[in-house]
């Protein structure tokens, strides 16, 4: 049949549209911003407090903190301890001078010289003890006695230089509130680990946590500071969110390159097997390439950027999309009208397979993880584009399919032999399903994946991070109180109200302490109240005379104190800007987050666990319940809750997806009997994969669930094929070969993912690769017709 004028015009239009679409997609892809950060592995936050938490994780103070360890040498060796301390001081000095860090702490007091001067100068505005009673005669006597009681002890020798200016000990009082209850051990004047021979430094990068280039420069600065004067036997270890981001980016980059390379090798090998023809190979690549470009463009348009991981996942698209090309190029041969025949006979089956796959990938779009949603959109757009290219463009470009037989005859022979023998073991499929169910029942539930299991950070890096965090007294995520306010002052006043209530919990031993921004920057109202409580010089002199009568401090020597108080009375409350240039500024930045048009100001109060090492969140909530606009966020529990919620959602989505696939098949088959027959091998395959993972002790999570759904979506195609075979007749060699090839491309591409070092990709791959293969084998066994398939290897599927 010659194509008529109208079909010819339509064909030209199809090609023109295709070229235009590809060109447009290429432009979008070219202009796309490619990222490889960790935020794709964090869920998008549905509640305000989770938004605070995730904001902290992405770009908060935690994301800018790097823990540095200098280790090496024997545990009790004095010389190596001294060498580590020396290196710590040297590195800290270099990092402070580098400008890449907002603050660097290593336990040396010198780092606090500027901060100490500021606190001393503003002591009457900052000290929580300052009020009218403290500056009465009785209050002064009490305060001075307390200070004097420290003289003659090592603490007293620190007080002596300021004794006559600060006899009531306000500076000491401030220092007490700022000293953490859990600090690292100090040895040779620097922080060291209690567990291993290791000096410790805490560095807060100037660069934002989300600025991976900036984090990379900060890490390079640390490395060069350490290498500037290397000491034999000493090693540098660094951990922190920035390190993870930088390494993950490198890892994702190298993974994407690896997956792209191996993916290309796989497709070339398989197409060579199929056709042994360079021209066929070149044509077969077209739907894949179109799909990849369309996928990138769709993600770019939908998300504003494309994550490197999405590109890595693209290899599975190769595995799926190349099948369309293989089907067409093989089946559309046979002279004039072959393309039309293919469109009539085979396209509906291909389309059905496309739809089931789309249902599977649609589940990814709704998982709530931006990274996974990208994978879903990428795959859906890619598959639709690849299928459309095959359906509308191939009949114009290659109306007669592709030449070359490749090894299809051998593949078909193998497949038909397998198809004729496997049905002998058809009840084995049922037995496998039963055994898998038994295994799943007796094995403890494997569904205990965690949020962290999605992150591409390796277990050894996480272990190092945990060790370093334990060393610096920040072992676990702990809990924080988030206080929202319409302005900076409102947030600070809220923090002060919370602080007053938390003080009671500290006194009761429920908490060991807390960090509040109001300790560094009291609200203007509080500062003004304290300064207003200071008596004038004459009154103070009179009261001092009374307070120091018979006391250890002679009033005559306290003139500097009277002068300082008089000066403080003239002070105005200071603001955030006054802290600039001291380590206090970066400490405050971590605890006081500016608001904008969309978000309120937020003060964060970090809680330190009581003596049992745990935080009784219920008691904290009860203690502060009367303060409005306050949320207690137990970080670990909150993250677990987020993940649990996403897992529940994913279970629903997977169940809905499976039902949708079943409905689609039911609509296509219009037979409950046939639907049940198709469902059995698919169920057996997924059960076996699940049981094998459970028995191996793997922790399963959302991604494995998604993988199971994909297995159902993809695997049902094979069952459908054998169902057709049983219902309608026998397959020819090419059809059998193309089925095997299609399965091999799928298995190979997902096996590549299973070998990935990115857990998200690995989890999907480890489920789908064996699942797809088992679906084919079980379908052949359960739905095959024994010896008949072999005999009919040279026949055709009867329409």
């Amino acid at each position, binding site marked *: 049949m010659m194509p008529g004028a109208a079909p010819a015009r339509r064909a030209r239009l199809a090609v023109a549209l295709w070229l235009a679409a590809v060109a447009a997609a290429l432009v979008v892809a070219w202009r796309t911003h490619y990222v490889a950060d960790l935020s794709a592995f964090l869920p998008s936050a549905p509640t305000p407090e989770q938004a605070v938490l995730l904001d902290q994780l992405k770009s908060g103070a935690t994301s800018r903190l790097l823990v540095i360890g200098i280790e090496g040498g024997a545990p009790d060796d004095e010389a190596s301890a001294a060498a580590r301390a020396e290196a710590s001081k040297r590195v800290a000095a270099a990092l402070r001078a580098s400008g890449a860090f907002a603050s660097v702490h290593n336990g040396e007091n010198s780092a606090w010289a500027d901060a100490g001067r500021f606190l001393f100068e503003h002591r009457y505005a900052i000290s929580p003890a300052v009020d009218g009673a403290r500056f009465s005669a009785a209050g002064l006597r009490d305060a001075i006695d307390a200070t004097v*009681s420290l*003289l*003659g002890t090592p603490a007293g020798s620190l007080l002596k230089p300021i004794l006559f200016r600060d006899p009531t000990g306000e500076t000491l009082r401030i220092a007490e509130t700022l000293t953490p209850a859990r600090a690292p*051990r*100090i040895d040779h004047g620097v922080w060291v680990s209690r567990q291993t021979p290791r000096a410790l430094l805490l560095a807060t990068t100037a660069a934002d946590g989300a600025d991976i280039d900036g984090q990379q420069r900060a890490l390079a600065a640390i490395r060069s500071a350490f290498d500037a004067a290397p000491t034999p036997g000493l090693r540098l270890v660094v951990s922190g969110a920035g390190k993870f981001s930088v390494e993950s980016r490198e890892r994702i980059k190298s993974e994407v390159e690896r997956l792209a390379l191996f993916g290309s090798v796989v497709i070339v090998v398989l197409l060579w097997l199929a056709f042994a023809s360079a021209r066929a190979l070149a044509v077969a690549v077209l739907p894949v390439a179109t799909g990849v470009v369309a996928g990138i463009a769709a993600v770019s348009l939908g998300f504003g950027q494309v994550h490197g991981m999405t590109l890595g996942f693209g290899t599975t698209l190769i595995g799926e999309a190349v099948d369309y090309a293989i089907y067409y190029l093989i089946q559309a041969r046979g002279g004039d009208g072959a393309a039309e025949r293919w469109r009539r006979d085979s396209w509906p089956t291909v389309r059905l397979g496309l739809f089931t796959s789309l249902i599977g990938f649609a589940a990814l779009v709704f998982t709530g993880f931006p990274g996974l949603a990208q994978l879903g959109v990428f795959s859906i757009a890619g598959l639709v584009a690849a299928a459309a290219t095959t359906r509308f463009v191939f009949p114009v470009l290659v109306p007669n399919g592709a030449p070359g037989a490749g090894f299809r005859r051998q593949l078909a022979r193998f497949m038909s032999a397998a198809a004729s023998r496997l049905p002998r073991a058809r009840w084995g499929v049922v037995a496998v399903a039963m055994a898998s169910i038994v295994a799943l029942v007796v094995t403890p539930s494997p569904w205990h994946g965690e949020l962290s299991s999605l992150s591409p950070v390796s277990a050894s890096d996480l272990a190092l991070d945990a060790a370093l965090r334990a060393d610096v007294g920040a072992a676990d995520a702990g809990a924080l109180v988030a206080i929202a306010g319409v302005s900076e002052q409102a947030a600070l006043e809220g923090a002060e109200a919370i602080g007053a209530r938390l003080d009671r919990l500290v006194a009761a031993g429920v908490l*060991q302490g807390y960090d509040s921004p109001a300790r560094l920057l009291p609200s203007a109202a509080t500062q003004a109240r304290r300064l207003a409580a200071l008596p004038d010089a004459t009154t103070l002199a009179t009261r001092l005379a009374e307070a120091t009568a018979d006391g*250890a401090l002679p009033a005559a020597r306290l003139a500097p104190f009277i002068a300082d108080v008089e000066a403080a009375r003239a002070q105005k409350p200071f603001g955030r800007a006054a802290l600039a240039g001291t380590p206090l500024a970066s400490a405050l930045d971590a605890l006081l987050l500016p608001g904008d048009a969309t978000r309120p100001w937020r003060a964060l109060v970090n809680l330190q666990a009581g003596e049992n090492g745990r935080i009784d969140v219920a008691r904290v909530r009860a203690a502060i319940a009367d303060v409005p606009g306050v949320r207690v966020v137990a970080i670990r529990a909150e993250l677990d809750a987020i993940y649990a919620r996403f897992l529940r959602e994913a279970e629903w989505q997977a169940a809905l997806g499976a039902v949708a696939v079943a409905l689609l098949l039911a609509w296509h088959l219009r037979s409950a009997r046939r639907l049940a027959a198709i469902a059995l091998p698919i169920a057996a395959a997924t059960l076996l994969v699940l049981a094998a993972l459970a028995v191996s002790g793997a922790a399963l999570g959302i991604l494995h669930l998604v993988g199971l759904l994909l297995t159902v979506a993809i695997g049902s195609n094979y069952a459908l094929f054998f169902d057709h075979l049983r219902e309608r007749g026998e397959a020819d060699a090419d059809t059998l070969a193309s089925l095997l090839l299609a399965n091999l491309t799928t298995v190979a591409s997902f096996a590549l993912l299973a070998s990935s070092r990115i857990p998200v990709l690995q989890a999907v791959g480890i489920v789908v690769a064996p699942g797809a293969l088992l679906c084919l084998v079980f379908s052949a066994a359960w739905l095959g017709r024994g010896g008949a398939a072999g005999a009919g290897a040279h026949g055709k599927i009867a329409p």
Partner: protein
Amino acid sequence: MPRRRPHPARRRERRRLLAATIAALGLAATLALAPSAALAEAFDLGALTALLGGVKSGEATFVETRRIEMLDRTLQSSGRLSFKAPDSFVRETLKPRQEKLAVDGNTLTMSLGDRSRTMQLDASPEAAVIVEAIRGTLTGNRNTLERLFETTVSGDARAWTLKLVPRDLRLRGQVSAVEVSGRDAMTREVKVQLADGDRSVMTIEPVATRGPS
């Protein structure tokens, strides 16, 4: 005149003397390594800590006088001490004002009136020096004492003095020396000499009957 070779008999005698000396030195070395040996002459840190370590808990009162050079004054305070093996120690000042310093393991809690704060002892080496000098002595913790201080023991079991000088030079810049003295298993006095000239003497009086538990 050429020196005469010693008579063979005298040579033998000298060899015997030499052998005896070496044997005696060996014995002394053995004794030094075995501090529990009941030899009064070998009263050293090992013997002292073994003696003190036999007492698992105790309570006492103290009176402390502190000389503050800067003020040209002497301050006096008094209160209670208690300890319990292996590593609990409480010093409660009752006069002139209520103060409490409690150490349990590595946790130091300081209470002043209604305020109390907790910190890690080893995060504050200056505090650790004083605390360990007293707690380490009371509980007979030889390892800790030797790790932190250069130790000198003088006297005997009935009246001993343990002088402790911080090993860390930076700390020695603050605490020059701590001198603990006592009788038998009972610590009676702690003298602290600070580098800035201040010094304190704490005399200790046992209150409860104590015994090994």
